């Protein structure tokens, strides 16, 4: 086993790093450059937000807000190398703000989607795909049961492969807290998806 290779598939998947200077161009008001940024980060940011809120439509709205806010505050970004961390930090703030706002409106974010909505057409899928899908649904449900801090840390580490340092920067949590949260989140997730893993093995 070599550490760090287990999830290597995800990082380089569809996008490379931004070409140097793109952020600087966007900072100068170049819309094309900001579009490149969106093309690179739209998917991870939307996915991150969706992990947190477990609601696709809401996630789109909040991701949109994230990019608008990023554009608005781009001039305040000092270290371009930290752009991704900065952007995830904005996304995290947008979600937590929306959640606070929604709590004032009596709505709890994230809401878990009713299972019936997710399982609708599984009979039509081949068995292997169906199992994958069930597993992914189990992961979604398990994510929804984590508390907000644990879910945030879990998503950033497991799905977005951020370092402890980056997660600390994005969330404002101490390394100690996020390590504890992460380990507990993993244990909780493991307990919940274990039956599905056993089925596959």
């Amino acid at each position, binding site marked *: *086993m070599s*550490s760090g290779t*287990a999830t290597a*598939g995800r990082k380089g998947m569809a996008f490379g790093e931004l070409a140097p200077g793109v952020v600087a161009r966007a900072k100068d008001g170049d819309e094309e450059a900001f579009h490149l940024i969106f093309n690179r980060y*739209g*998917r991870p940011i939307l996915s991150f937000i969706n992990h947190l809120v477990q609601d696709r439509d809401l996630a789109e709205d909040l991701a949109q807000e994230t990019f608008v806010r990023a*554009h608005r505050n781009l001039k305040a970004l000092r270290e371009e190398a930290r752009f991704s961390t900065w952007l995830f930090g904005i996304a995290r703030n947008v979600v937590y703000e929306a959640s606070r706002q929604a709590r004032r409106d009596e709505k709890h974010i994230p809401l878990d989607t*009713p299972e019936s909505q997710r399982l609708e057409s599984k009979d039509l899928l081949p068995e292997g795909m169906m199992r994958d899908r069930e597993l992914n649904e189990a992961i979604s449900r398990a994510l929804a049961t984590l508390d907000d801090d644990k879910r945030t840390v879990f998503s950033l580490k497991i799905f977005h492969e951020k370092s402890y340092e980056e997660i600390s920067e994005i969330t404002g949590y101490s390394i100690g807290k996020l390590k504890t949260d992460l380990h507990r989140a993993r244990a909780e997730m493991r307990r919940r998806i274990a039956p599905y893993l056993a089925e596959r093995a």
Partner: protein
Amino acid sequence: MNCERMQPELEELFYGELDARRALELRAHLSGCEECRGFEAALAREMEVYSRYPEVEPSAAMWDAIRERIHTEESTPSPEYRSRWSFSLLAGWLLQPAVLRQAAGALALIVLSVSATIYFTSRRDGGNLRTGVQPSPVADPASTPAPDPVQVPAPDAAGTSALLAAGRPAPVRPAKAKQLTDDEMIRVQVGRAEREYAGAIRLLDRAIAERKQQLDAGVIAQYESSLALIDDSIAKSRRAMRQDPGDPAARQFLLAAYARKVELMQEIALR
């Protein structure tokens, strides 16, 4: 080595967060410990499963929406909506169009019906009412007590349209009102409050439609997304109430959500 205590470190080994010396020690231990190797294999399987959890693809419309909002911001240098909703409800009241004055009349009725609901609820519950509901939507929101963080029950799978249901409140038979129990009275009052909210909302909606041209696109976008959140919690509370009509939490949520909706609409209508 204590194997159980090593589990967090084994996870860190996977993340590449362990320093080189400790990583070596752990690997040495792994080669001689079946239990830890078992855990390592389970972790590897887990990581593989997580790595295949799909990402969410942005919709085609997302960039267009972002672009549009960016352009709007550029043409209006310091949008007001950044400073959150400022709430000065009665400012310039008489200058407002007639439809808003009608809405104010409707709101006065809401205060009455919501107060009545609270009165009957507290009477039935022996006065132990949790007053999370803001009785008057006209009050300053800063003085609103924070509602209890009770969760709305999960929606039922076969939820009917909240919009359709909202248009058809339970019929009230005033002639029989005297013989009603407190429980029935509560239901009657909730129904009445709902109808009155619906009336005020229709009026405010008209006022907002008339004003929409003058409003900043960012304001409208924010208004619409807030409204969607509120409508969702109204729909959920209604569903919860259908499942258990006597549920005080659901009732409280429903009325609070209506109050919030009216507040939000007033803010927009009176901007």
